[in-house]
């Protein structure tokens, strides 16, 4: 039997032809690279965005501390953060939020000193806190806990990122490079404090930047600016000012960090924290 004749335009893929195809596709690939750099990849060709006022990230070490005794639960910080950072208005998207802890009185004869803990955060506290459904006489203790990025020394989120889009800057702030983020969400899962979210508009991960665009200009983060109770203390650990509120705060208070047992090395400090706070 004779095999059907090969059509003239289909050449059999022998070694010579295979090598030719490989060579030409490689050449084509390399001709693509410079053109890509010229157009889309040309981001880097543009002049690098300069820091405001010659800000040098290696000469600062920013930190926030929170005084739970001073938090009055107005959550003006949450609203200010959403405005300042253009955070989507829907609940579940927060760079900072306030949690209300209610510790019930223990049941009679239970042998416990403190009852069950109830934590809520209606809309992150953005619209303030309506009175709780738990009657006042059943509450043993109650307080508000402001939450934000813990600026971990060994941050799981930066280790989880597969593309180097999130990192700890030399000034201690953990940032997300919005041009590099591929929106895989690994960092969101890895953060044990739940501080990250996927922005539904940009499809990139977002988090508290300590208002990086403000602190590099010498302004306070928006949440610190509007806090009426002085619950949020912000400062530079590397070059503290003479009347630095942060140095005074750590000298006067017994401070703790959130979930220290995880080994993430959180740098955000809390004063007046009960054992129930997670």
């Amino acid at each position: 039997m004779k095999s059907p004749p090969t059509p003239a335009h289909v050449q059999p893929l022998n070694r010579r032809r295979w090598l030719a195809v490989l060579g030409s596709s490689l050449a084509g690939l390399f001709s693509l690279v410079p053109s890509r750099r010229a157009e889309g990849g040309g981001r880097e060709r543009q002049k690098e965005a300069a820091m405001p006022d010659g800000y040098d990230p290696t000469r600062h070490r920013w930190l926030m501390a929170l005084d739970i005794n001073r938090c009055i639960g107005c959550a003006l910080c949450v609203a200010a953060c959403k405005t300042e950072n253009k955070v989507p208005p829907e609940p579940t998207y927060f760079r900072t939020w306030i949690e209300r802890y209610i510790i019930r009185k223990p049941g009679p004869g239970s042998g416990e000193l403190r009852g069950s803990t109830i934590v809520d955060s209606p809309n992150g506290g953005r619209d303030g806190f309506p009175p709780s459904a738990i009657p006042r006489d059943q509450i043993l203790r109650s307080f508000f806990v402001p939450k934000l990025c813990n600026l971990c020394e060994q941050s799981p989120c930066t280790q989880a990122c597969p593309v180097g889009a999130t990192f700890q800057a030399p000034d201690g702030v953990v940032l997300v490079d919005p041009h590099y983020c591929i929106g895989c969400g690994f960092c969101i899962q890895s953060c044990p404090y739940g501080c990250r979210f996927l922005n539904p508009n940009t499809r990139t991960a977002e988090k508290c930047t300590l208002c990086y665009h403000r602190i590099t200009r010498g302004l306070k983060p928006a949440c610190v600016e509007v806090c009426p109770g002085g619950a949020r203390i912000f400062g530079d650990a590397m070059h503290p000012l003479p009347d630095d509120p942060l140095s005074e705060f750590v000298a006067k208070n017994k401070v703790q960090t959130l979930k220290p047992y995880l080994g993430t090395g959180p740098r955000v400090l809390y004063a007046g924290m009960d054992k129930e706070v997670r």
Partner: protein
Amino acid sequence: MRPHRIPPQILRLILLTLAIVGVYSVARYFLTPASFGRYGWYRAAALGEIAAYPPDYAGKAACAQCHKDKAEQIAKGPHKALSCESCHGPGMAHVGNPDVKLVKPAAPLCLRCHEANPSRPEWLKQVTLADHYGENCLECHVPHQPNEAP
């Protein structure tokens, strides 16, 4: 057969390895952003890009430059720790253009902080609205100096 000749199949493997490494190095050179690796395993240019976002809140010092009287007034009372923008909202647009007016907050904003709530700390003055004199706080209180009568 000469003793030191590399067998052809090994030679092909070496050439193939060199080719792969070469292609990788060239591609990496072209595709890695210029600022990658300056501070660490990330694009250092991102710092400047993030820092370039425009701020919305101007800060208390900016307010006090024009509204010196209000800044001095509030510094005398228990509201001295408050920032102007806590109640009046973000003010950067107003700093750039005084025709952009900020909100004059009304009474419900007072309750955001001062409504009685068992979760609030005891040092804060709190009112239960039902037991208080009225709903219009500003009839009796001056927000810039809350202990003074208007």
